[in-house]
């Protein structure tokens, strides 16, 4: 009986802790959502702490949707880089992972070391910039995915996963005359949906959230992704000197609601993808991590 009470208490504390922790994680998101519907005057009157707007406004969303071609262009670029970038990166990474998982492949160790080196020793900003420039990728859309077509960490994950597929399955397929490519398409990939879905999600989220590559390599406003626009919106009034703050138009005219609404619209698409792929998450990440 005592044990049951202790267990019950333990469970309740655990649940309470999880609820509190979840609340802490969700509050910033909730705050952004609430502010996107709050008039600036109410924000000021409540000293910047608004739980629910007394007089909600959709003005910020209407402004973005009806008067901001920049937003839609950036949104389109972000969607495009997610679709094209994720597809190509996962395809190339998967193929590299499959190749390096083959037994008896000549030069396999060297290939793996080359992959590992890219994880342990990143090129650095300036050398990478020079490579991008020399490749003629500056200010071009493919700069978003060509430099990361083969993801080193992804290769290791795929390799490990494929290595764990029982050799008997492949042997029986080979005995039936299946080629390497057919083996990959018809046997290996269907057996690897969990890891592929997980990697698609990782890559898609990474592509959606990326802004630094655009900041460095893109100067054409029509090729800027949404996250860079949001980053700029939030950077605008930081770091200015006192002399500058009087000259800075933005520091005098808050557009907080607009910023928050832009952020909400930037978050929604990736939130929509999560529920569809989340079920593969745990299986995908852990399958292949234990050998035996």
């Amino acid at each position, binding site marked *: 009986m005592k044990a049951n009470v202790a267990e019950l208490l333990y469970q309740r504390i655990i649940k309470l802790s999880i609820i509190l922790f979840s609340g802490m994680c969700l509050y910033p998101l909730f705050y952004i959502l609430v502010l996107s519907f709050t008039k600036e005057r109410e924000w000021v009157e*409540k000293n*910047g702490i608004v739980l629910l707007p007394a007089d909600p406004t959709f003005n910020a969303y209407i402004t973005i949707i009806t008067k*901001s071609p920049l937003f839609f262009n950036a949104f389109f670029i972000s969607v495009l880089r997610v679709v094209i970038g994720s597809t190509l990166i996962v395809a190339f990474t998967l*193929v590299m992972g499959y190749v390096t998982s083959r037994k008896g492949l000549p030069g396999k160790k060297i290939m793996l070391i080359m992959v590992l080196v890219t994880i342990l020793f990143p090129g650095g900003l300036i050398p990478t*910039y020079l490579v991008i420039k020399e490749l003629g990728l500056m200010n071009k859309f493919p700069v978003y995915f060509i430099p990361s077509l083969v993801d080193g960490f992804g290769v290791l994950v795929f390799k490990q996963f494929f290595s764990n597929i029982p050799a008997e399955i492949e042997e029986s397929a080979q005995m039936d005359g299946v*080629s390497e490519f057919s083996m990959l398409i018809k046997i290996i990939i269907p057996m690897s949906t969990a890891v592929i879905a997980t990697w698609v999600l990782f890559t898609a989220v990474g592509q959606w959230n990326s802004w630094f590559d655009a900041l460095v390599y893109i100067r054409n406003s029509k090729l800027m992704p949404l996250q860079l626009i949001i980053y*700029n919106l939030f950077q605008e009034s930081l770091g200015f000197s006192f002399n500058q703050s009087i000259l800075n138009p933005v520091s005098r005219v808050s557009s907080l609601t607009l910023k928050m609404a832009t952020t909400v619209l930037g978050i929604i698409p990736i939130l929509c993808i999560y529920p569809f792929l989340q079920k593969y998450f745990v299986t995908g990440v852990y399958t292949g991590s234990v050998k035996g």
Partner: protein
Amino acid sequence: MKKVFALITVLCVLIPTVFAGCGSESNSTTNNTTVVSSSSTTDVVATAATQTNKFEKKLKIEMMQGTWVGTPVGGADDVYKKWLDETFNIDFVLTGVPNFNEQVMVRFASGDAPDMVSSYDKNMIIKLHEAKLTIDDWNLYKDKVPSVFNSMSDAQRSAASVAGKLALIAPASAPQNWSFKIRKDWLTTLGLQMPTTPDELLEVARKFAKNDPDKNGKNDTYAFTSAGGKNGFGEIDNLICMYGPRDYYVGTDKKVTHPIIDGNYEKFLNFIKIAYSEKLIDPDFFTVGWEDRKPMLYNGKFGTAWYPGVLINETENATGITGKTIDWWDTMPMPKGSEEGGKLPAGGLFATVQTVSASAEKDQERLDRILAVIDATTYPNEGYFKLRWGQDIDGFVLKDAGDGYKFLNATGNAGVNKRGQYDGANKGLYDYGFSIATGADLVIESTQDTLTATAIRQKELDGITMKLPAYGQEGMMTTLDSTVVDQLNKIVFEFSFKYISGKDTNYAAFKDKWLKAGGQKMLDDSYTQLKAIGLAQ
């Protein structure tokens, strides 16, 4: 199946290649289909035609700079670029980056330097100069940019010089319009006089914090506020000026000293210690940022604030333009805590600085074009008002406001002005004014076509501040090792907070530590530099 494999392999290789070809090297700023909405389009075009004759070859010129707004420019609304392109026969590319220092280093280190650079950070531009990546000595181009040399003060030129060479140029420094503002209505409500000494200020502060000056029945007001942003005390540091200058300065003995050495910093800390222990100052002052602090400021919870007169405008806009807050604030002369105290800190020398890359300098035709742009858009030339305020080229009209001031309706109107502060305006266009803006133009931004009571009050407060005595600018005329300065700042921040919270009261040990950590070197360096320009002996 082999065919399918081959097809997919070929596609994997071809798709990126095809996309690589689809991108465009040219910036969207090359779009020249803009329709100028200004009434004086004809004049602009006529001027452009004349100028174009002088500049036969069209050049692409890139300006890389920090940003105010940061949203991309160069679209169909960009009448500012159109004016620059047509007037100087260039393809002007404005690259605004929020993290300027990091970006500019990448560009220069990669051999892909922009033609012009402009930043808030003078030290960054000096670093580029020291690495011989920018114009070596602007004095050589005095004849090509006479307006710049006329507008820069001697103090600015001294502060911008390295080993006798002018490393950078800057817009004219603005008159000092920052001062402590105090709640005039609270003084009246509580029957108080304007404080003139630190003790009187503390007495007023106690009443502001304890006597419910806003009469809302709650104990929710503070006498002082500051936006430390986790980096220090913030602008409340200016209260050091009650006792003396707040930076390195030349004393009466013509030697260089500093408030930490002369004991004024200790007096200031003692003042803040009282304010902190008696809860007269917003307890978040050490952590809150400039923007985060605004709701409470606009909501009337603070009795004093370090701000220019535009505080009136900001507060009115944030509270619904009711006219009720116009008479909230008054300018507070700096209380006098010692014989040499009671002056405002020196006005800033630089809002932004700019220079030209060494690679652009080597190309004479390019350099001439860049210098022409710079000189034409320097205050008070006509080009300044076009680029900074959109006069003529973006439908904005500057009107006389008396006493040398001008005003314009900065809100703008859809269909008339491309930039402005209305919903849907392309605010990014403000960034064209980043490198040239100066408060010396005395332009007041109004929200209406007529001079509002808000703008008049703002002008009054700034006018009062500009007439108040201020300390000399010698502390800003030196170029000190930024790494050592950062280290010293950390030591000061750490000790200051411990001191006011009573955790460390050994000021002598702090002073000793500060000197050993580089303070003495900074004093020596300042002395050497100020002696070289005849300010110290």
